[in-house]
């Protein structure tokens, strides 16, 4: 399959080009399988590992990885494997929930700004500039600092900052799209501005934003984990990955597994989404040509 994908840039004629177009990039297959494994494990966690992820066993504190506890136990004797698996549910949930508002609000705002132009565009884009002026992580941390910790506030903080990326992406596309003939025709038909934006331009301008969703999920999961690590995210004793890494930070010398294992889970999820996202981007690019 990868041989076929490599054939694309070579001037191998129509047959090779068509074959490359039909072949699914290897990355998207691997990433897809990884995602399936991850979601499957998350959904089946109560069946696979029926033990309570918060169950303490003070007789089995900080135990090395063994048959009974493949990834060892933490300072409360809680099984690290069970907690990492249940943690996937929390971190993936945040990743998926947190991008809904930025995607919808950012895309619509960006499309409106690009189509309307003039002072509305200037106003929206200056707002985007102001939010961009503060580093993403700093602003999210600052907002959570004032709202207080907890999953809902993490979602609010990310939503308040993340939409600007989608607004930028979609606005750029709409600026190109709005001067095409079909838009002039729609306007001549007397369609309303919002109908033209939402029903006709947005479907043509949304591809880059959709492609970015996969990278954005990774960004959000990593940010949520960072907030958890700082003690500003999901509250303990929830088995959130960042929080678990923070709890293990104290025992690095005696029990390295408590802090390291959740990070590998996070990396696994990150790689899965990046592979799928890159693959999707390639597919869309090939189809666009």
């Amino acid at each position, binding site marked *: 399959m990868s041989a076929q994908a490599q054939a694309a840039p070579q001037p191998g004629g129509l047959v090779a080009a068509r074959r490359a177009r039909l072949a699914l990039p290897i990355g998207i297959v691997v990433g897809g399988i990884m995602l399936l494994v991850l979601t499957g494990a998350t959904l089946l966690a109560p069946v696979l590992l029926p033990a309570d992820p918060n169950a303490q066993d003070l007789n089995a504190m900080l135990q090395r990885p063994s048959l009974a506890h493949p990834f060892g136990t933490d300072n409360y004797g809680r099984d690290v494997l069970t907690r990492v698996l249940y943690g996937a549910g929390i971190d993936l949930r945040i990743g998926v929930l947190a991008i809904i508002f930025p995607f919808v609000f950012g895309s619509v705002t960006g499309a409106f700004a690009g189509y309307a132009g003039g002072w509305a565009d200037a106003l929206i884009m*200056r707002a985007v500039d102001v939010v961009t*002026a503060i580093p993403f992580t700093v602003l999210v941390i600052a*907002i959570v600092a004032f709202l207080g910790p907890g999953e809902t506030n993490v979602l609010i903080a990310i939503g308040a900052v993340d939409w600007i990326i989608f607004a930028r992406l979609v606005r750029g596309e709409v600026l190109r799209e709005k001067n095409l003939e079909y838009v002039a025709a729609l306007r001549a038909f007397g369609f309303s501005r919002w109908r033209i934006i939402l029903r006709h331009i947005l479907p043509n301008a949304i591809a880059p934003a959709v492609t970015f969703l996969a990278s954005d999920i*990774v960004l959000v999961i990593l940010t949520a984990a960072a907030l958890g690590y700082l003690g500003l995210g999901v509250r303990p004793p929830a088995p959130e990955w960042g929080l678990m*890494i923070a709890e293990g930070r104290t025992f690095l*010398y005696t029990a390295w597994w408590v802090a390291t294992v959740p*990070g590998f889970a996070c990396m696994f999820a990150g*790689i899965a*989404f990046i592979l799928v996202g890159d693959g999707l981007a390639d597919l869309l690019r090939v189809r666009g040509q």
Partner: protein
Amino acid sequence: MLRYAMGRIGQMVPIALCVTVLIFLLIKLVPGDPASAILGDHATEASVRALRHQWGLDRPIWQQYALYMRNLATGNLGQSLRYQTPVSSMLPRRIGVTFFLIIYSLVLSVLIAVPMALVAALCRNRWPDYAIRAFLALPLASPPFWIGILLLIVFSLKLRLLPAEGYGDGFGDHLQHLFLPALTLSYAFASVLSRNLRSSLIDVLTTTYVDFARAKGLRGRAVLFGHVLRAAMLPIVTLVGVRLSYAIGGSVVIETVFAVPGLGSWMVDSILSRDYAVVQTLTLMFALGTMLINLTTDLIYPLFDPRVRVG
């Protein structure tokens, strides 16, 4: 050039003002009353009222903003509740530490990214290219603070090569103490840098003037470093500016991992002790730092590319 510079600075001022409004409004996000939140459940009504008055919370919101701006302008940045010292007296040292860390990580990133991008571009689509790209894809998918912890386990706890925490005294000591945090920050930085430099190098390698340089008899290395690398670095300058703002954001968490006494760990400390005024000031410092970096890259760019200077 001067008009270009003045224009860029002129664009920045209104944005900086809006940033101060945004940061001022952050305090309104506190559920309930910030004064009673800070003083705790056992505070008397009189002490809450006194603190509210001291902060101007009993006045209309535009007066509160005016007060906030007047304090900023006069350098009265408030009192750190946790350290019981004026914020302005702690600020210079802390800024110095974070600045050191960011520049250190920038230097390390370039040292990592340039050789890797060169090898990847010259061995395009062969195994060294794939290996380098896989190695550089990892930091995009993993939490940076976790990578920091892995480095800490290997280099300070197991191999005992480097100190695990702190800042140290003197330049050499700083270099040693900040090596692991800077390396952690630079991993993600180098990843993006190297990816872009690789594609930029490949673009340059296929241009005709490289063929020309070879044809006039220059040796491979002279072509590579004298012409190719110089031209390929151009698009990277802007990217460095953008990525530095990410590095600044990342430094907040990384400083906490390695207990580096900079702005980031101070911010986290202040959040945990509900030192709202300090959190606001530090957020503003991070924003101003980012804006200065972006301005600097915009101003430096014409020095590298005469086309912008003329146009």
